[in-house]
């Protein structure tokens, strides 16, 4: 089972999956039959080779099935209230991931670029502090659950 869940509402799709994704395919879907939106902003998060000075070898992502989808849908709905955006796609992978692997994708289209930039960053900032995912990091220090960062809390609070 590579696709854990796939939630679709009007112009919105959320996917929690173990499988990798293709940026090109995702953007093609956001743009298909969508000539009214001139702007497409994407964010891709990947596994870095180091974190706070330690050499990372892998990450294991756990999540809370059901709540994950609900919290992401709520974040996207808030973004749609605040900005004039067209389509939104959020993908978050779970399971074990290695250096350079894609972890998360957020794609937003809009008529005007400002809305797509703001909504995309807002979704990422809120995903970071509200969506129930947890990372366990395997590094030179062994396997450890990552601590949440207060900088992420502060960043989300600024919107």
């Amino acid at each position: 089972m590579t696709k854990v869940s796939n939630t679709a509402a009007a112009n919105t799709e959320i996917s929690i999956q173990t499988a990798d994704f293709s940026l090109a395919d995702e953007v093609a879907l956001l743009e298909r039959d969508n000539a009214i939106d001139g702007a497409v902003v994407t964010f891709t998060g990947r596994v870095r080779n180091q974190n706070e000075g330690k050499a990372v070898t892998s990450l294991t992502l756990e999540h809370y099935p059901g709540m994950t989808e609900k919290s992401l849908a709520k974040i996207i709905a808030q973004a749609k209230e605040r900005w004039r955006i067209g389509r939104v796609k959020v993908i978050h992978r779970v399971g074990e991931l290695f250096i350079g692997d894609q972890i998360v994708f957020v794609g937003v289209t809009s008529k005007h670029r400002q809305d797509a930039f703001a909504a995309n960053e807002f979704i990422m900032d809120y995903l970071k502090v509200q969506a129930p995912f947890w990372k366990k990091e395997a590094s030179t220090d062994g396997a450890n659950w990552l601590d949440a960062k207060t900088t992420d809390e502060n960043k989300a609070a600024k919107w």
Partner: protein
Amino acid sequence: MIKVVFFAALREQLNCSELSINSDNLATVADLKNHLASKDENWQQVFANSALLSAVNHDMVSSEQAIKAGDEVAFFPPVTGG
């Protein structure tokens, strides 16, 4: 009954991912926390952590949130996705 689920570091510390609890005498999330903390020293220590988050039926809530039979209550550490 109330279904209680635990995630990530919390799940490992408690060595428990899910349990069912009789909801009689448990009016709020705080009551449930106190009840769980009374299990033993380990559970007490874990639930003393003020950073712990709770959700009822997939919505993040505060400890004052009312709970009732049939609810799903979750406890977990601050999230670290993205």
